[in-house]
């Protein structure tokens, strides 16, 4: 009987731990390549908003005769930081809006702080660029001056 109780209690504890881990993950964290935890936020868009953003972006390209190329549909599932540092590397793109800071603390910079990325002055193809002053991230291409990034 004592043994059964012991197993049952431990089973409950293990289930609790598993549930906590699953809940924590669904509430918004991803891992850097070296396993640091980065916070991400949920998506709050709707079909009408997506349609409006798509239209505004297309019109903007016309109005500015811009050579920007559309790479994917509008979404608020992820932002520029998440696109460059997470999605492009094969990470999930669902509910992964990644803020530079969380509660005033470093969040995005974990990717290049004791992790897989180091700072460099020269960016070759398929490297990450972080524009600190503009709170923006992008991925370089083989063409100098051209990057892949997400608006918003």
């Amino acid at each position, binding site marked *: 009987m004592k043994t059964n109780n012991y197993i049952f209690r431990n089973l409950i504890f293990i289930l609790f731990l598993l549930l906590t881990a699953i809940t924590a993950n669904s509430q918004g964290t991803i891992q850097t390549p070296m396993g640091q935890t980065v916070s991400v936020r*949920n998506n709050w868009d709707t079909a009408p*908003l*997506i349609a*409006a953003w798509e239209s*505004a972006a297309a019109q903007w390209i016309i109005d*500015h*005769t811009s050579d920007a190329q559309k790479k994917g549909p509008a979404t608020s599932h992820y*932002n*520029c930081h998440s696109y460059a540092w997470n999605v492009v590397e094969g990470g999930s793109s669902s509910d992964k809006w990644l803020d530079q800071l969380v509660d005033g603390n470093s969040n995005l910079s974990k990717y290049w702080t004791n992790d897989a990325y180091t700072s460099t002055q020269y960016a070759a193809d398929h490297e990450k660029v972080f524009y600190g002053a503009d709170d923006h991230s992008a991925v370089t291409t083989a063409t100098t001056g051209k990057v892949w990034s997400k608006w*918003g």
Partner: protein
Amino acid sequence: MKKIILFLLIVMPFFSFAQNEKVTWDYPIKPGSKEWLAVSDFSKRLELLNIPAPLLKKMSTEELVKSCLNYPEYRLIFTRNDLQSGYNFIRSSFNGFVELESRPDAGKELVKVYAGYKPDGFDLNATDLEIGNFICKITYIEILMAQTEILNKLNPADSKELMTMCSQKYKVKKDRQKYYGGIGLQTTALIIARQQSKKLINAKIKHGDQKINAFINSLTFDDIGLLDDLVMENDKILSDGL
């Protein structure tokens, strides 16, 4: 003497007309136009939308509000990490917003216009694009009204009217959350959060100061319940007459 009086009688009506002339700004150079495309630099193009200084000072606040709400590059607010950063960007590009924020009656004029915005005023059979554009227009006026420079200039009566209006509009939006989503709801709650920030005791206890401040500063939220709680507390503040 008679000649002077006669002269004044003839000239005065013209002078009054000149004084009362409505100064408007409808962006004579529009994005995509020939004149617009003749300028290649992006920031210089945005300067083409600026209101010339002599006109800007003569414009009534009512007209200035109209021009700001029709700013052709308002769409750029969605290209930043959050809507406040987006607003900061367009404010740094367009002198109309800077001028409006400095006007003592900006809030009052915006409240008048905002009163006419009906969040359920779209046809449920309309296309996603039509509904989305409708929602964006509400977002534009709300993010403008949420600026503390504008909110701070409201007198207590106008402030109360705005808070009542925001609660009502939020609830109408909430009933249509399928269309508005958190993005469409957040700006209404933001006006409330910024204007009532010192009185939001229950929301701060429930969600913590940090989460409320993160929402106030950069519209960060994990849970729509936070927005609902802000509106609920606003209702209580209004009913308690605080």
